[in-house]
């Protein structure tokens, strides 16, 4: 289990990195934390000609406040993000989810941006980006663009990122003071990918739900946004929501898989309960407050 040979470069600037990706014409692969990529390299399921290490790019690590949101630089370590005060205050859902990403040892190396860019449908980071309505900043020699996380994911490990493009940041919009965080995940062992799980946020205004962002983990080929449930939630007051009806709506957009850990039917059945349990808990939190 040794990787096939490859070249290694560690550019210091985004421009440098983009130039390399462009020249490589699809033969390059970007490594940030490498906690998913390295197993693929060792198994020779990934055989790039050039490995582009973005860990040394200026400003590629850290959390900053931007207009209307919080920006996480792509090579920010998951462990650092987990303990970041800005994130704890403005993007608590992300912090909740980070505690479930892999293990202590992999979070010390793994990055937020790497996980977002890979698009593992059962992972926490892509689901968070979709649920919270994050924007993904992308650069290439052709210029820069931004893409909504909801347009970023196409299939398992398949994203809208072109071979010559690089993720340069993820911006999580503010959900406002006192917004509710929804997170629940079911995994057989700590650090395993979810059998099913959900993450989301509810912004409140005047006792009613002003904004809702919800997404599933492991319920389809991509992190699945609960678009219909979101729409139904907006305008309702927490204590009046029909959780059972909502969970039906939430399931509509899913397409879970069978594998030998869990059947699609299991994921649907338990995912629905997870959703209802999580929403009821959130509602109670509010009532208590």
């Amino acid at each position, binding site marked *: 289990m040794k990787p096939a040979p490859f070249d290694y470069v560690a550019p210091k600037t985004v421009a440098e990195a983009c130039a390399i990706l462009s020249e490589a014409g699809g033969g390059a692969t970007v490594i940030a934390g490498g906690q998913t990529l390295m197993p693929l390299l060792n198994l020779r*399921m990934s055989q790039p000609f050039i490995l582009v290490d973005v860990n040394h790019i200026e400003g590629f690590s850290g959390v900053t406040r931007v207009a209307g949101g919080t920006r996480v630089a792509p090579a920010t370590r998951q462990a650092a993000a987990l303990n970041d005060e800005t994130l704890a205050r403005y993007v608590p859902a992300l912090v909740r989810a980070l505690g479930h990403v892999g293990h202590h040892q992999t979070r010390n190396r793994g990055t937020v941006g790497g996980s977002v860019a890979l698009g593992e449908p059962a992972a926490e980071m892509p689901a968070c980006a979709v649920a919270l309505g994050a924007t993904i900043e992308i650069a290439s020699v052709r210029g820069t663009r931004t893409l909504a996380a909801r347009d970023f994911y*196409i299939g398992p490990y*398949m994203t809208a990122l072109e071979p010559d493009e690089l993720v340069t940041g993820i911006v999580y919009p503010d959900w406002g003071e006192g917004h509710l965080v929804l997170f629940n995940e079911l995994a057989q062992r700590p650090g395993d990918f979810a059998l099913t799980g959900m993450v989301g946020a509810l912004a409140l205004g005047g006792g009613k739900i002003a904004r809702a962002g919800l997404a599933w983990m492991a319920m389809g080929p991509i992190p699945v946004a609960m678009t219909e449930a979101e729409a139904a939630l907006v305008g309702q007051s927490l204590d009046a929501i029909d959780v059972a009806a909502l969970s039906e709506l939430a399931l509509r957009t*899913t*397409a879970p898989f*069978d594998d030998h850990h869990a059947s699609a039917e299991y994921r649907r059945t338990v995912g629905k309960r997870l959703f209802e349990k999580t929403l009821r808990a959130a509602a109670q939190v509010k009532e208590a407050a």
Partner: protein
Amino acid sequence: MQMSGEQRIAAPRDKVWAALNDPEVLRQAIPGCQSLTKEGADSFAAVAEIKIGPIGARFKGKVQLSDIDAPNGYTISGSGNGGIAGSAKGGAKVRLSDAPGGGTLVSYDVDAQVGGRMAQLGGPIIDATAKNLAGKFFAKFGEVVGGGDSPVVEAAAAAPATTAAPVAARTHSAAHSGSIWGWVAALLMAILVGYYLGASGTSGGMVSLVLALLVIVAAAAFEAGKRGGGR
């Protein structure tokens, strides 16, 4: 994996036919193709670099054709070998017909198998991803042949619920992603193009076989990422 479905291509049958019989069109359309070599009268080999996200491999492909009933359909069988990553082989029964209300109806029944690490690491996600990519392929194909008119794929027949909303729903936007078409096309090239150079009287349907093979290869590889282990 098994996959069956049908797809309306927004173009007259002769145009679909011609486009699919024009190696030049394909050669231009297909990125990632590294070489084409004729190995015999009706046997060709092609090599293409498939890459999806970080996952990829160098594939060698071959195809054979049987039960030719031009221009109505045939059975095609082929294989793609990705070395240590694994291999895919299979066949498809393909039919072309005029679609009611214009255009061409391509219907296909694919039965293919994947081997090697991809089969071990791929898991049952293969079927769903195959249908997912089938939609994307046809959306793009319709775009190319139909000149911009990009039909949405109809859900494959007799498919489990795994082809539900998001899959189809995403098809359209997928069509605008060059990379997807590229990778779809790459194995299409790998396994198919060789054939065109040798065989006469063919039809567009064979695309779906090659598609299926790529799909399997790619799908398994996707899942490999998930199964690879780390985070």
